[in-house]
């Protein structure tokens, strides 16, 4: 047995399955997974799931990319107007009223005057009600108001 024959005898044999699982097949797989991980991290949030007072509330979608912290939450859903998860007034009633200031909301928000406030508005609310909400908050001394929206890059 010559040297060449001996070398081939002791060398590792590549099976047909190893040939299929070559570097050329694995590299795109790793790339794909990396892209998936980046996409998941970019389009998701580490914050806990949002819990809305009114289950029928659907938030609007925005292209904005901002984060903020608030101490007071005002939610206006199709059913009612909530402050810190407590129902204060009826949306349907105030939708039709001509008055621009909502007394129930105003009195409650006076207690939180000057605090940063997060407003959660149902995406189908009419501007006529939204302006009443904003006007009432401003009259109660709330200067820093942010509207919560679902990010357009969300999963």
């Amino acid at each position: 047995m010559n040297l060449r024959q001996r070398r081939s005898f002791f060398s590792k044999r590549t099976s047909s399955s190893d040939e299929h699982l070559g570097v050329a097949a694995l590299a795109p797989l790793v790339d794909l997974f990396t892209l998936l991980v980046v996409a998941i991290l970019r389009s998701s949030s580490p914050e806990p799931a949002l819990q809305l007072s009114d289950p029928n509330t659907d938030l609007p979608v925005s292209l904005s990319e901002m984060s903020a912290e608030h101490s007071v939450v005002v939610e206006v859903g199709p059913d009612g107007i909530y402050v810190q998860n407590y129902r204060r007034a009826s949306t349907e009633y105030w939708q039709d009223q001509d008055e621009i200031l909502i007394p129930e909301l105003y009195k409650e928000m006076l207690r939180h005057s000057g605090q940063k406030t997060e407003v959660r508005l149902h995406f189908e609310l009419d501007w006529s009600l939204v302006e009443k909400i904003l006007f009432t908050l401003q009259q109660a001394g709330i200067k820093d108001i942010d509207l919560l929206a679902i990010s357009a890059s969300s999963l």
Partner: protein
Amino acid sequence: MHRSFQTDIDVPDIRPTLLSLAALMLLLIPILLLIVNPQKTTYLPLSMSTKSGVPPIAHTGPIEVLKISIDTITGTKSPDPLAKYSMRLEVHRRKSDVRASQGDTEVKIWNFTSRRECMQMLRDIKSFDKARERITVVPSKNLRTSDIVFWMDILRKDNGEDFFPSVVLESSRSDLNLPTIKEDDE
């Protein structure tokens, strides 16, 4: 000529490394999906201009007032969802002293039914007064929250750059005086 004492050069096999990386990713993806919240939220600063509480910014550029009134065109069945708005752009341009907070101005008003034309006009105004950051939006009563958010988004950023980052909402109602709050009787 074949050399009898030539040794084989071992080429390192990177397949195990790649396989372990793929396995790590395969574990990481479901863990991430379990941990993170798929609903990503964001915030939009809201401020409303009223007679009793206007948040002023003293802007001393060539444009004193920049206001856009937005309404919906009812009955439009255009395939373009953006074509359902009608816009009225109002600009107060200072004629004399551009550094004055309030001065002699000329008022120009344009009406648009095309969003693209309106945005082009706003770009022209921005190029004329690059330091201007504020725009006042007057939504009609037909507009909904989603419409307002849409307009705030496109006015705040244009092609990825700050356009008019300070969007102030203004009511078209004239009775924005604070009504008297009746205290509950004991």
